[in-house]
């Protein structure tokens, strides 16, 4: 009888289409964010993250329409990240039906933005996304630009600072593990989760269902995010929940 750990499928959206090849055998249009979101909702996803990777800011409006469509059909929390630079970007996404926004590069460039956003919209909707790479034993640094650009900022100190500035949650991605299928960086996840009083979402590297459970048990994450393990229909969200439950983790069942 307590709070369940969360499973969060993540979708990369480019100009209104899901990319990174989501594959479902029986889905009509795997590029349609609404179709994919509905599928994950039916499988028991606890939240969804949409990452807008649209290069051109002219096409950002497309994401707003995607959010509107998804939010009128899927009634679980929806986080949207990517390209958020102004308070008005947040307002627009929340008005469209997003519940939280993920802020990454803009927070690094201007930490005060996080403080302003939390004060204006409430901490509950401000997720600070951190991309970290290991730079030594027990040391990780923040990288931007998809892991290419070092910042010299210590990841754990940064997470603490963002929490004190009003972030409601940390989305923590290991750039070393992202795309490897080797599992989360559990030492990083554990270190950040212990350092901050707010929930931490583990991200980057999931290849098996056991990796998800490891993220919670060893990494002490409050939620686990994964993309390809679900997109390629290797596993359903329900299978992931069953596997995590089998290892003693409290999960939400689908029935009312």
């Amino acid at each position, binding site marked *: 009888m307590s709070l369940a750990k969360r499973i969060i499928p993540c979708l990369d959206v480019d100009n209104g289409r899901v990319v990174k090849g989501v594959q479902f055998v029986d889905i009509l249009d795997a590029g349609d964010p609404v179709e994919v979101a509905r599928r994950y909702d039916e499988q028991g996803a606890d939240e969804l993250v949409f990452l807008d990777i649209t290069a051109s800011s002219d096409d950002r409006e497309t994401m707003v329409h995607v959010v509107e469509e998804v939010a009128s059909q899927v009634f679980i929390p929806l986080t949207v990240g990517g390209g958020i630079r102004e308070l008005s970007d947040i307002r627009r996404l929340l008005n469209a039906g997003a519940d939280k926004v993920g802020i990454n590069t803009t927070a690094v460039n201007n930490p005060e933005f996080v403080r302003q956003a939390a004060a204006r919209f409430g901490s509950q*909707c401000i997720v600070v996304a951190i991309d970290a790479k290991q730079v030594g034993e027990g040391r990780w640094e923040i990288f931007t630009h998809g892991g290419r650009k070092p910042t010299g900022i210590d990841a754990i100190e940064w997470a603490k600072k963002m929490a004190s500035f009003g972030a409601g949650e940390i989305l923590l991605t290991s750039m070393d593990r992202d795309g490897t299928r080797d599992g989360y960086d559990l030492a990083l996840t554990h270190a950040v989760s212990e350092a901050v009083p*707010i929930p931490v979402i583990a991200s980057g590297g999931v290849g098996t269902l056991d990796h998800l459970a490891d993220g919670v048990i060893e990494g002490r994450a409050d939620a686990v995010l994964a993309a390809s393990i679900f997109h390629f229909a290797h596993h359903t969200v329900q299978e992931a929940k069953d596997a995590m439950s089998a290892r003693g983790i409290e999960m939400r069942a689908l029935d009312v």
Partner: protein
Amino acid sequence: MATVAVIDYGMGNIRSVSKALEHVSGATRVVVTHEPEAVVQADRVVLPGVGALQDCVSELKRLGLDEVVKESIRNKPFLGICLGMQALLDSSEENGGTEALGIISGETHHFSDQLKAVPGTDALKVPHMGWNQVHQVKRHPMWQGIRQDSRFYFVHSYFVAPADDAVVSATTSYGFDFTSVIDQENIFAVQFHPEKSQHAGLALLANFLSWDGSS
């Protein structure tokens, strides 16, 4: 045509609430409004909200909606969600003390202080965020078709402590048991977000649209 007014005071995820209501509304028209008159005209009223209670209360007052809320609560089915629940109490610890609407006797406290007082819970994260179980402590038409201990989606750092236990309709455990639902006459108020709680949440919203306001 029956109408439900969703009070829009410029904060939070109003659209999530209206979309979820529209999904289950059937013959009821969903009106998102900040006009006091539209709230007065509606057959039932929803006060949603996320963010800071201080802003919520000051915006309600600025828009002339505080008196309308108090009036609505006397004569029609009323659903408060998250801040829309906390706003009904006397006051909150938020920002060193915030006056609320004082419709239900009690106060709103921050989780952190309470968790520090409970042994072994200081590692629990605040905000309390995610799907937790809601334990119904009495029968109520709003719970129709919703299983005991169903999970709903929560995201909040403050919890309500009503003065009178009789208004507690459900509790939730997070380090300790807190009041997650209040009911009093035609008021039903929830700390969680039914608009984000999938089947159970939609069932609750559907129940609200057919509830006559009696318990």
